[in-house]
């Protein structure tokens, strides 16, 4: 079974931020997680681009305010790409 986009994003965030997956929710954000600084945000963006084969514009990077929004953005990008 393929894990959902949210599950995959949560897995990536867990690795990048060094926090256990089950401690991350859709609401987890730079405000609630102290590791999530600007460098880690960039690392998260790059890992997402690599993993899902998408490109994120500066405006989209700014929309990634919590894990749920990141997953929603990825879903939107993937559905706009012809599959």
């Amino acid at each position, binding site marked *: 079974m393929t894990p959902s986009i949210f599950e995959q994003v949560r897995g990536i965030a867990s690795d990048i931020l060094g926090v256990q997956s089950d401690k991350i929710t859709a609401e987890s954000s730079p405000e609630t997680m102290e590791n999530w600084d600007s460098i880690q945000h960039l690392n998260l963006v790059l890992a997402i681009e690599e993993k899902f084969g998408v*490109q994120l514009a500066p405006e989209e990077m700014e929309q990634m305010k919590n894990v749920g929004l990141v997953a929603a953005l990825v879903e939107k990008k993937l559905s706009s790409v012809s599959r």
Partner: protein
Amino acid sequence: MSSEHSSSNLRAEVDRLITEGAFDFAAQRLAELWRRDPGLAGAPSIISRLDQLGEKLPLTKIKVAILRSFTVEPIVPLVRCEAFSYGIDLAVHVGDFNAYVQEILDASSSLYRFAPDVVVLAVRTAEVAPDLWHKFADLAPGAAQQAAARVVHSYEQWIAAFRERSQAALIIHSLEQLRIPSFGVMDGQSESGQCGLLRQINRELRRIAAGYLGVYVLDYDALVARHGREHWHDERRWLTTRLPIATDHLLHMSREWMRFALPLSGRVAKALVVDLDNTLWGGVIGEDGMTGIRVGPEYPGAGYQALQRTLLDLSRKGILLAVCSKNNVADAMEALDKHPGMLVRSKDFAAIRINWTDKSQNLREIAQELNIGVDSLAFVDDNRFEREQVRAALPEVTVIDLPENPLDYAAAVRDCPVFERLILSAEDQQRTAMYAGQKARAGAEQSFQSKEDFFRYLEQEAEIAPVSDLTLARVAQLTQKTNQFNVTTRRYTEQQIAEMAARPEWHVLSIKVRDRFGDHGLVGVAIAHDQGEQCEVDTFLMSCRVIGRTVETALLSHLAETAAARGRKQLIGWFLPTKKNAPARDFYAEHGFQRQESNGDGSRWSLDLGRAQVRCPEWIKLELSDHELNDRKLTKGGRN
């Protein structure tokens, strides 16, 4: 995705192995995890496990400082993982953003406090030569030339200042070219145009670097070109985060750094073992025969010829070649020596194993025959099963995965960083011929009654000399590569050797050996320093080529004699055991040294120079030479 799934299984396995204390296996699985899915998403979980394993693994440690004019942070985990997959524990220090000039000039900066082994100067044309990059069109011809001269002058100053403050290797990114120059195609009509001036700066940079030991140029422009200038950059990412390199190419940047880190840390392959059927030629010689196998200048044989050309290039660089093939000997040898499309012949291979035994066993024997460690072997085979068998049985071998298309085989081998070298000694270029002499010697040895008779027959001549301009590279290389007959296994750069040689109380000696079968070249190094009544051996090593030929006794006798002549009372030496240096374990005991003390690191031996002496074996004719190291090789000056 199935790879997703197996990756998470593999991770769980690594964690289980770590808990069980099976660190070596955990490290193998961890390296496999990286090989399967190298990249930004996977790197952090590998790093966190690596940090747990850290000290428990026999990794080569090196400290790399990156001075930069752009964001490099996301590349750091990638380069650490790449290094780990080659057995290196890489500690990284990243300099402050655009602070590289202060960091180089200030002797108390965080750069020098970090005490790096390797420093990368990763700066871009746009920052180093802003006038030429952005405003070339506004500059009068003379002003453009002056701007270029100023850039060259800056490099000169930075490198000189760096060398005064650090012995670390310095790797400088060359300047990259523009996608389209300010004046378009007109720029291509003159060598003093925008691109021409950037080329001129790069040429000058190489000239300056060549004047120093341990200063190297990373051809950044060629790297960008190789991956495609249109795709390498991400302008939006640069403008928002100061990361100029597109996501897909960050891994390529880290791998380019590894091409320098591997030869600098001595983690290199000394021999490449190749399969024959469907690797060196297309088809199976035992079934398709001489007329059926494919190798030649046309499709599809050209791919195999390109691989053979690559092998020849490696062999000119001092990397030994060997064959390991499941075949009938007569069939395979006929193809090797008679097929008109072949570029390599059996004489180009230092060892040949054509049989039906499993390949890992053959690789062990090849390593033994060539007198190198199994971890100095690389292996290439089109057959996945064979590769996995070797990986499982001999995880220390570098196994090269071949792509599906034979036209891509040559590139897969050329891309492999374990074949990189930064310097080429005379020994490297003649290595294959030397091994041919070795085979003749081994044949002769069996026909003698006693070892002594054989030694007399060999007619060995040895020349001992202080390290000189001509031998410095080879001496440093031997300290970096010699694992077996090496009492302390201390690794030194050319720069460090030069500094030691410059001190009056230090003695850096090399020994060259030839015999009736040929010239072995420079095969041994001894470094000693006087301290009060004692002379202490810092380094004593012999290339595996001459182990068991009593050459070590000749060198030690000279060391003892000269120490006594300088008035020293004792010759002292440490033996520091490693996994590999058992051949040197009894060296001091066999030459009359007494054990003084032992600690966790090793044992300390002493020879009373007043009472005992070491005699040079009568069958070795010894010559002494006294060319000193020329001053211009020392820390500050350039070569010219």
